[in-house]
């Protein structure tokens, strides 16, 4: 009982803090004032609080369910938002940046989805089916989710890059492309938010409004986005590789083969292949960031198919409705 209350409190703390962080972003968008900068910095502390909130939540579940809290979709979603928080903190510690404009909305979106009524019976901590009772669960699933988190973050940055690049093109063909541009904005509103945010902060720092410097900063921003998405995707790729391989070793212990062409496995492999393509395009120095960004945004879609699509259809060995009945 005390655990469920604790869990409830922690869920609400992390959710409301991350909402406040998002609110601060909207405020900095609307009110372009110098004193807001103080607010802006406090949002980083907000992410740290969220991080501890989710960590506590996961530990609570671990203690009262007696197994690593990654046995169903709800728990993996919570873990995913935890992964976003940790990506933010690690990259922030390394170098001060505004990456949380990507990580904070992602975390709130994931948390909101997890706690909303959509997954009604999910929050109950489920029992572990026989196949999941293994030490590999911890390694495989945590690596996969960390990989998903990093790759989602990196590919969102790539999508942001695409949006900004297309805005530039769009302004020259303004009349022809109004509709497409509108759609793009609609689709990637989060990333536009990011862009505006980033630009605002730069403008705040520089106090300059010349279109020349604007173009220069836009170019710099594109470079930054390209760089960060490359580094984060590289990191996510490592996690994904380790996750898939540990999953293969686990499958060899449980299902009798290290590769079964199960839909989830296959889609994870497809995702892996797409990001391998991304990394290969990146090795070409002359290639523009836009090519790799298109591949990365394709990867963004694929991760969601891999993460959700296969689960929703409930097919294959990863459905956990069955005791490997095939």
């Amino acid at each position, binding site marked *: 009982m005390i655990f469920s209350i604790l869990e409830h409190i922690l869920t609400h703390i992390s959710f409301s803090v991350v909402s406040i962080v998002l609110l601060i972003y909207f405020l900095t968008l609307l009110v372009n004032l110098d004193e807001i900068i103080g607010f802006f910095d406090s949002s980083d502390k907000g992410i740290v609080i969220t991080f501890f909130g989710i960590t506590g939540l996961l530990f609570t579940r671990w203690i009262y369910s007696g197994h690593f809290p990654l046995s169903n979709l709800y728990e993996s979603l919570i873990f995913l938002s935890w992964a976003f928080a940790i990506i933010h903190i690690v990259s922030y510690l*390394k*170098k001060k940046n505004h990456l949380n404009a990507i990580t904070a909305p992602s975390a709130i979106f994931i948390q909101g989805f997890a706690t909303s009524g959509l997954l009604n019976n999910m929050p109950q901590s489920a*029992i*572990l*089916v*026989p*196949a999941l*009772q*293994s030490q*590999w669960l911890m390694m495989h699933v945590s690596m996969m989710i960390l990989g998903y988190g990093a790759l989602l973050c990196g590919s969102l940055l790539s999508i942001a890059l695409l949006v900004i690049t297309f805005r530039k093109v769009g302004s020259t063909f303004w009349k022809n492309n109004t509709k497409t541009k509108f759609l793009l904005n609609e689709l990637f509103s989060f990333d536009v938010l990011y862009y505006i945010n980033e630009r605002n902060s730069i403008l705040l720092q520089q106090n300059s409004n010349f279109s020349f410097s604007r173009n220069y900063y836009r170019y710099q921003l594109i470079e*930054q986005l390209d*760089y*960060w998405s*490359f*580094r984060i995707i*590289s*990191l996510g*790729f*490592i996690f994904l*590789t*380790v996750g898939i*391989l540990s999953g*293969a*070793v686990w499958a*060899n*212990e*449980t*299902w*009798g*083969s*290290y*590769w079964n*062409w199960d*839909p989830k496995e*296959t*889609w994870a*492999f*497809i995702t892996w*292949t*797409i990001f*391998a*393509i991304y990394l*290969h*395009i*990146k*090795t*070409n*120095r002359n290639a523009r960031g836009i090519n790799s960004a298109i591949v990365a945004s394709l990867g963004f879609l694929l991760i969601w198919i891999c993460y959700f699509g*296969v689960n929703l259809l409930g097919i294959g060995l990863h459905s956990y*409705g*069955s*005791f*490997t*009945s095939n």
Partner: protein
Amino acid sequence: MILTLNPKILHFSKSPLSRPSPRFYRSRTTSCKLQNPQDGKSITKTISLSDSAPPISEKTDGGGNGGGGGGGGGFLKRLPRKVLSVLSNLPLAITEMFTIAALMALGTVIEQGETPDFYFQKYPEDNPVLGFFTWRWIFTLGLDHMYSAPIFLGMLALLGASLMACTYTTQIPLVKVARRWSFMKSDEAIKKQDFADTLPRASVQDLGVILMGDGYEVFMKGPSLYAFKGLAGRFAPIGVHIAMILIMVGGTLSATGSFRGSVTVPQGLNFVMGDVLGPIGFLSVPTDSFNTEVHVNRFTMDYYDSGEVSQFHSDLSLRDLNGKEVLRKTISVNDPLRYGGVTIYQTDWSFSALQVTKDGEGPFNLAMAPIKINGDKKLYGTFLPVGDTNAPNVKGISMLARDLQSIVVYDLEGKFAGIRRPNSKLPIEIDGMKIVIEDAIGSTGLELKTDPGVPIVYAGFGALMLTTCISYLSHSQIWALQNGTTLVVGGRTNRAKNDFPDDMNRLLDQVPELIKTSVD
């Protein structure tokens, strides 16, 4: 102000080419602490290489892996070289990867391994999916068994060939270039680098020591300096490719040299391994251990409080040809038994029979029949006839069970009579008859396999994990040239490009400003 000199530095000072000024040790003013560089390469050896090493050419500057074909071995004739250069083409490799990804995605969309009739109905000719896709496509391309279809395996083989060609023509020459290193002799060349800076009143020796403290390998020749770190990050992509090839080889061996089979054995019975195992490919060769007999001593299921199954256990004894027990182990899901190359997995279960006594008669062994199997929602049933069993409409008691834990009993009219647990000895009374459920006998579903490819695949897995992680490292190179009292520094890195200028500035800030203006 503590300066710890490690053997490397002493080595460095003895090197005939570096000619350090005596000032180097006497009047140093930096307070940096030196660490032992990680990459253990003999400096003297590398320095002797430098005399013959040509400067790094522009063409081979390109990053990481892939890229256009370079020079192959001289012994190759023209045609193979052309094939190699085509195969190692990066756009081709990317196309192959895209195709493989698309085929795999298609394989999850199209149902695999169904009967031909299924495809005739699902993809009819008169109403094609997307306007063109009919069952003819599926059978021509073998899309009903995508992951063993020639088109898919062919693409994988092509990708493997590309991997090898790229490693041979692009990556290995890149290593040769990266191992060579050269000093830059002019300010202009250094200033052309991604990062460049000019330090007035600084000494190249001080920079060398600081770089060494930051983990760089430092080489000096007169006024010139060359330093690098993270060379492993440059080499790791080769390891990634080799690991991929290893996994492919292991996978091929698995696909051609395995035995597989599954069996459902009631508790108390036995089987011979060789009878269950069937060859998968043409390289499958049976071994002596196939004569081993497996006896199922006991099959049990664990339950949660809610009644759901938590684990399955099969107590197995292996006996050799003489009937001697060679191994005994209780296996469960995630805990298979391995003996002589054969692995036995716990994968399934079934209800074999129910032991009941009627009015003290018996016990009768009633065979349980599966009624509905839907995932783990299994349902088994049996029937105990009452009265004249030869009558056309024989009546009896029905018993249903979802697991080995509780049996639901229905009377002659089909009405619910009660639930009993096996072993409870509690009789249930139906129309004056006393029925006691003595025992529920389960069958264990075992899967057996041999797989000669696993060691190779696992080696590939290990190598892939390791090399992918190492690939994250940046290979950074720094050049510097002393020009009077001015020090020109330039450098570049292949991955962490944005962090590099910051790191460089941090390091260059440590370089002490010379007060005395005579250098060498």
